[in-house]
């Protein structure tokens, strides 16, 4: 019992640190566009054509989802792995092609047939809006405001295999292969100790079962939720770790809000579908609460029901993205100082690299920790939903 609580406090403590860190990362990137604008205004004022290194788009570009995998290089010499683009629009119907079909310089790229435009990771019909974007792309945020909010509002439904989707499929395939093989090895030597792959994965499986599922759900109900919890845990863990591998395009799968949203939604769905009488009773008529407080408590409880998975989603996204942003910020630091003088660049580079190594170590911890927290909280929510009344 005590170890469980120790673990819980440790997790809570780290969580608070994480959230603060996450906010910090968020602030960083939030402030960045402002300085970006300011810098641009400054450029206009001076009339100086020299374009300095701007860390904000650099970082956002590396952290945000994309329609191809950008390996290295900039502009024309950039090396990309093209990914499939799958589009549906009323005008052109279903269109499938590779992202390498987009050509052009600057922020907006067009397909050769002139049907579609790609701007800041967003695909729209070339006919409307995109050209306007191109015209005043100096206001980077404007194009987004015009096109986001209602996906396909510009007439295109984008079902492309983006970088994050590709990464997710990669991780999920890896999961099937790894655990399929591990399961096969169990089948091959029944009653024997684990060997090879199974030996590596078994401690983690046992960790999820004995330290996450069983304490939150109890032996019996744990069996019901374990497939989901294990899948979520290993998906998040492997996706986090994939995001830490440099030079493969900087995957940020668990930092992609669409993907964490799906997982948080599954948690919400499972909690709601498995909620028993006791759970709903607590939600809509909390026992032991004076009646006059009910108008306050009940809305809070109902909001909380939705808030829990939303927080789950934001925590994971923010943590992973923030970690990436911090590391990229250190890279940017080198580039910024390197621009003013090579000596300063090398000097800062030493410290930046040291910090990056430090951050990588923390990120490794965070990769595991976030997988653990997401799974643990999901298990606790399931436990609350299926808890039998005994008081």
């Amino acid at each position: 019992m005590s170890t469980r609580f120790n673990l819980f406090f440790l997790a809570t403590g780290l969580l608070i640190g994480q959230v603060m860190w996450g906010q910090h990362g968020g602030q960083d990137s939030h402030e960045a566009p402002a300085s970006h604008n300011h810098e641009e205004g400054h450029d206009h004022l001076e009339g100086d054509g020299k374009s300095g290194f701007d860390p904000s788009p650099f970082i956002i570009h590396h952290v945000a989802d994309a329609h191809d995998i950008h390996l290295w290089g900039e502009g024309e010499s950039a090396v990309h792995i093209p990914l499939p683009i799958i589009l549906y629009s009323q005008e052109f119907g279903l269109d499938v092609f590779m992202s390498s079909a987009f050509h052009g310089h600057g922020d907006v790229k067009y397909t050769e047939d002139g049907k579609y435009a790609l701007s800041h990771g967003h695909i729209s019909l070339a006919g409307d809006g995109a050209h306007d974007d191109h015209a005043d792309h100096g206001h980077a945020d404007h194009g987004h405001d015009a096109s986001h909010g209602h996906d396909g509002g510009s007439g295109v439904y984008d079902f492309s295999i983006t970088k994050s989707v590709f990464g997710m499929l990669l991780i999920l395939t890896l999961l099937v292969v790894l655990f399929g093989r591990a399961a096969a090895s169990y089948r091959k030597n029944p009653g024997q100790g684990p060997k090879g792959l199974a030996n590596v994965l078994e401690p983690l499986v046992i960790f999820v079962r004995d330290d996450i599922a069983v304490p939150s759900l109890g032996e019996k109900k744990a069996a019901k939720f374990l497939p989901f919890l294990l899948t979520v845990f290993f998906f998040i863990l492997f996706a986090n770790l994939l995001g830490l591998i440099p030079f493969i395009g900087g995957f940020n799968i668990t930092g992609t809000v669409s993907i964490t949203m799906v997982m948080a939604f599954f948690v919400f769905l499972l909690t709601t579908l498995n909620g028993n009488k006791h759970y709903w009773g607590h939600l809509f008529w909390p026992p032991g609460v004076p009646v006059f407080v009910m108008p306050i408590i009940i809305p809070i409880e109902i909001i909380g029901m939705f808030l829990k998975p939303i927080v789950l989603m934001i925590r994971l996204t923010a943590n992973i993205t923030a970690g990436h942003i911090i590391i990229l910020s250190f890279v940017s630091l080198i580039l910024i100082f390197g621009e003013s003088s090579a000596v300063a660049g090398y000097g800062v580079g030493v410290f930046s690299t040291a910090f990056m190594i430090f951050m990588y170590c923390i990120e490794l911890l965070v990769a595991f920790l976030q997988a653990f927290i997401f799974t643990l909280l999901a298990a606790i929510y399931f436990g609350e939903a299926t808890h039998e009344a005994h008081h």
Partner: protein
Amino acid sequence: MDALLTPALGTVVWATVAFLVVMFLLRKFAWGPILSALKDREESIANALNEADRARSEMAALNADNERLLQEARLERDTMMREGRDMADRLVADAKAKAKAEAAREAEIARQTIATERKAAVAELKAEVAKLSVAIAEQLVRSELSQDDKQKELVTKLIDESPLN
């Protein structure tokens, strides 16, 4: 920031489909077999441990039993030896006593025999002496005395006076 925080429909759809498919695949082909294998193994390990514990306690009981048997055997042997020794002692003592008694009895008999023999010998001696004396006296008296009566009276008087007894 918009690029980071805006969910994209396509990604959501792909993520949902892919996650569901993989979860059901894993549940059927990985989690099920792995978890049941783990459970089986844990049970078999727990069983084996219990078995070993029981075997150990059985062994201990057996050992204690053996020890007890050995102790009993030792005690029995001791008693048997003691009894044997006692019996031997008793036998020897009995034999000694019997021999002593026998010897005493024999001695007594011998003594009695000796006494009887002596008495007989004395009586016989007395008779012999009397006869001899008579013969001597007869010879003596015959030669000295002519008259029997007077001689006989003299002999008797002589014998009576002699301190033979």
